């Protein structure tokens, strides 16, 4: 920021204190505000320009002063001026905006992942350690937090104005957004996409805490089972381990260490295994058949909730060895999840 930091802080604090401006509570917020003030300046200049042209001409050329109009055809030079200058300014806005967009929507590699599930009309947050929250989100300050979000029903939108981040939470697909909170405090959390009756009740609080406090909170509010542990249980109870057990004769591919790797599918395409891929492969297995395997996996569409899917995905992410898979396989029933036609999901 090339504007004097003192002045900047004064301006923001003053505006915020008079409830005209949101707090700047994340690393991205000052960048967003800088662009905002630039655009605001542009608007004011544009408005003043147009306004003074109208007022100036109205005064100078009003009928009582200038009874006879002078006819003018127009001027190519002037047309060019007010084509090129606005165009250049708009292109600046485009480039600046695009840079900011990619900053907000591309999480750093080292960020901490929290899952968000939206449903009518609440937000569920699931921390990797197994802490579940409803309509609230606790995050440590000073480290990048990535939110991997999905909706169970309709479109929602996850918005924290004080962090200047927002992203649509859509059904059937993970979306991500990230932020790095800078100030301890509680901030509003809104659903900004109209989602039905209680749309305006789909709000919550984001609590940004010091890393130490966050640690304390995480320990107090854990359910005792991490997401991966939940996933492991689900993995066994759905009978996934019957095929995905890593044995040489297994009917399904080995899942240990599969996260982050590149797979070749039967149709020859190469894919990067990420959260979205894992989720899709569970729901629509026949479109994600690993080369060398038969398309025999049944679909789990309609049988696992989004939370269950998150558990499974987290589990597969952490799976480094098949030792425990093979251990549990002995004790669980493997024919539990027979292929069935999912019934219609209609409320």
């Amino acid at each position, binding site marked *: 920021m090339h504007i004097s930091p003192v002045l900047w802080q004064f301006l923001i604090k003053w505006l915020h204190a008079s409830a005209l401006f*949101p707090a700047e509570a994340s690393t991205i917020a000052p960048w967003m505000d800088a*662009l905002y003030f630039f655009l605001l300046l542009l608007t004011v200049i544009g408005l003043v320009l147009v306004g003074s042209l109208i007022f100036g001409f109205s005064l100078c050329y009003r*009928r009582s002063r200038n009874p006879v109009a002078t006819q003018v055809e127009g001027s190519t030079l002037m047309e060019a001026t007010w084509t090129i200058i606005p165009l250049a300014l708009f292109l600046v*806005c485009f480039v600046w905006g695009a840079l900011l967009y990619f900053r907000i929507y591309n999480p750093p590699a080292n960020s901490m992942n929290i899952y968000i599930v939206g449903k009518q009309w609440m937000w569920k947050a699931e921390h990797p350690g197994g802490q579940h929250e409803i309509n609230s989100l606790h995050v440590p300050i000073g480290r990048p937090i990535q939110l991997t979000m999905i909706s169970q029903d309709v479109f929602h*939108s996850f918005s924290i104005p004080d962090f200047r981040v927002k992203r649509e939470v859509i059904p059937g697909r993970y979306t991500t957004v990230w932020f790095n909170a800078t100030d301890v405090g509680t901030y509003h959390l809104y659903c900004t996409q109209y989602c039905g009756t209680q749309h305006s*009740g789909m709000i919550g609080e984001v609590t940004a805490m010091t890393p130490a406090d966050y640690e304390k909170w995480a320990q107090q509010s854990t359910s005792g089972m991490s997401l991966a542990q939940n996933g492991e249980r689900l993995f066994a109870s759905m009978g996934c381990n019957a095929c995905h057990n890593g044995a040489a004769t297994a009917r399904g591919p080995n899942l240990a260490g599969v996260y982050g790797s590149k797979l070749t599918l039967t149709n020859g395409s190469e894919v990067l295994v990420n959260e979205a891929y894992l989720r899709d492969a569970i729901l629509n297995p026949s479109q994600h058949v690993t080369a060398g395997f038969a398309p025999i996996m049944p679909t789990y569409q309609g049988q696992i909730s989004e939370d269950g899917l998150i558990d499974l995905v987290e589990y597969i992410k952490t799976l480094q060895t098949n030792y425990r898979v093979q251990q549990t396989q002995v004790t669980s029933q493997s024919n539990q999840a027979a292929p069935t036609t999912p019934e219609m999901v209609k409320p």
Partner: protein
Amino acid sequence: MSTAPNAISNTIVLLPDQATATIPKKNYITAEHGLLSWLLTGDHKRIAMLYLISITFFFFIGGAFAGMIRLELLTPQPDLVSSDTYNKFFTMHGIIMVFLFLVPSVPATIGNFLMPIMLGARDLAFPKINLLSWYLYLVGGVLTLAALVLGGVDTGWTFTTPLSTHYLNTHVITAAMAIFVAGFSSIFTGLNFIVTIHRMRAPGMTWFRMPLFVWSHYAASILMVLGTPVLAITLVLVALERAFGIGVFDPTKGGDPLLFQHLFWFYSHPAVYIMILPGMGVISEVISTFSRKRVFGYTAVAFSSVAIALFGFFVWAHHMFIMGVSNYSALVFSLLTMLVAVPSAIKIFNWAFTLHKGSITFETPMLYAFGFMGLFTIGGLTGVFLGSLGMDIHLTETYFIVAHFHFVMVGGMLMAFLAGVHFWWPKMTGRMYPESLSKLAAVTTFIGFNLTFLPQFILGYLGMPRRYHAYPPEFQVLNVLSTAGATVLGIGYMLPLLYLGWSLKYGEIAGNNPWQATGLEWQIQSPPLTENFTEIPIVDYEAYDYEWLEKKQKEQVTTVG
């Protein structure tokens, strides 16, 4: 004819001597009598009047919903109505205002009235289709009211799937049908205009002699004809999906909700240009008339309309930047969005420079036009905020969006509509509206509008989401301001209804050309004859040629003298 004023006055209004003047006995209003003669008419002027009455009716219904929304938002608590009711309010406000007011507002009323006259034709190319389009509009309106009376719809006017298809139990299909039918009304209006402009121009009326009003309607008509059917088929799919539970837009069944967004916005983005372009046409006419000067850079203004229509088709995904479109296409659409902003800037500057060296007077239409220019500048530039990808993340789906499109649609289009109605009121009815009262209304509207919507920009940046029934208490002050403004705005809109009604009987007789304007419509009697022209004119002058007008008037004076 009254004699030319000796002293330079502050007005160009030139009325016939009220003591002797009368409304021409033979005109399109008196040509036939009885209700049926109106309901079965093929006369574009009568159809325009039918449209004017019906869209005014729907405007005030939509406005009533706006009033109730603002009243509910006076307090942070959800206390006036239940959430479901509130959701139905803003849905109805949106559907009525977008599809039953803004889309047909200028084209179907003023455009319908003037298009043939401005081109020197006796009627639109297809008078029966023109009447059909009004009936379709009525059917659409009645279906909307049916959806409302039967229990309402709460999808929002955007019908977001899968909410609208699988999760609501309100009258979505009725509302979708209403919009489907109203859409075809708009298609037929557009089709009629395009054919009329291509085929019915009077001898000598070349493309570059057409008034800019015609150019902007031409551009808007192209958008209507090519965009609306996509909305129609999308709504058909929504209705089918809802009725039979099929999953084209439902991810759990393998469909894609973003497909709906693409198809919906493919129409609904161009739709905002359908709404604003005809308004821009009105502004061109008004600015030129009241500064007694041809529009600065006629060609640039004409082509910028066409450019808006063309680019308008390439930018729709900017409504979906945060919805999970690919980053690459977000980039492309953002860039194209910046390009479409340029023609609007060109127009604004050309209008401003039309004033330069003019001889300006400040009648009511001119005041509305000034209001339009100021508010549209704000509306347009705040659009750049939203087109700029990063900024859009924070601002979209908040009150900033609400403020932005109300600046364009209400501050822009409604101002232009009122400018047009006042400007052509003497032509349509043969009588003048009361000048000072209407000036008061224009100023009231302007003040009320700014009070209503400027606070919403601030609310938006604070992060207040749109379509919220209740909101955190710290937003109350700004919301109260906004509601107060809405009250003033409401009065500003009631006033014209009252005094225009009054003027039908008591207004001064206007004569043929009270504004001394150059358009063909001002060279015929007011109200015009059913066949517009006793003989088809041969056009031998360019649009906005005030020297031609002066010469003509001198000839007339000498003839009479």
